[in-house]
């Protein structure tokens, strides 16, 4: 099990209160594979320094978790399939 940190940028046109539940459904991948989600932090709307997919704003969320490498890989893959996800980043903090 490793510690991971995932940052997701979502479409700003989404309803902000639907963000947490929809992310939770994705995080089932982690829970089902035996990992655990330590923290789900939704920053909310934030202006980006440049446009992504013609959008100048994004809803940022940061998730801290412990899981197997395969589980995070699958989560990242599935998030990127979603049109409402502008960008993701997985890092392993020291």
């Amino acid at each position, binding site marked *: 099990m490793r510690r991971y940190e995932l940052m997701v*940028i979502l479409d700003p046109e989404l309803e902000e209160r639907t963000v947490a539940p929809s992310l939770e459904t994705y995080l089932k991948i982690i829970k089902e594979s035996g990992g655990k989600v330590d923290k789900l932090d939704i920053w909310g709307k934030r202006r980006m320094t*440049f446009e*992504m997919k013609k959008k100048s704003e994004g809803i940022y969320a940061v998730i801290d978790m412990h899981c197997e490498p395969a589980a995070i890989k699958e989560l990242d893959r599935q998030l990127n399939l979603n049109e409402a996800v502008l960008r993701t*980043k997985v890092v392993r903090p*020291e």
Partner: protein
Amino acid sequence: MGARSNKTFKVKPKLSKAAAAKKFKKKANPLKGVEYIDYKDIALLRRFISDRGKIRSSRITGVTVQQQRQISAAIKNAREMGLLPYSSSAR
């Protein structure tokens, strides 16, 4: 006579060089108390980029080589996520 005066001339610049070396003072490390450079800490990273968004060299900021690597990696991560600009020539 001419050779002698030359010699005295050679000594003078040596002295001024030594003085210049003494004047060159190491900068205080601006990263004291920071053990992990997080790409989400934009306020910290902003101190290491110029007005145009370029990464400042360690010669200017006075951080160690290892820290400079961590800083540049963090800035690049932050840029990818739209937290810091790649360039801001508009300013």
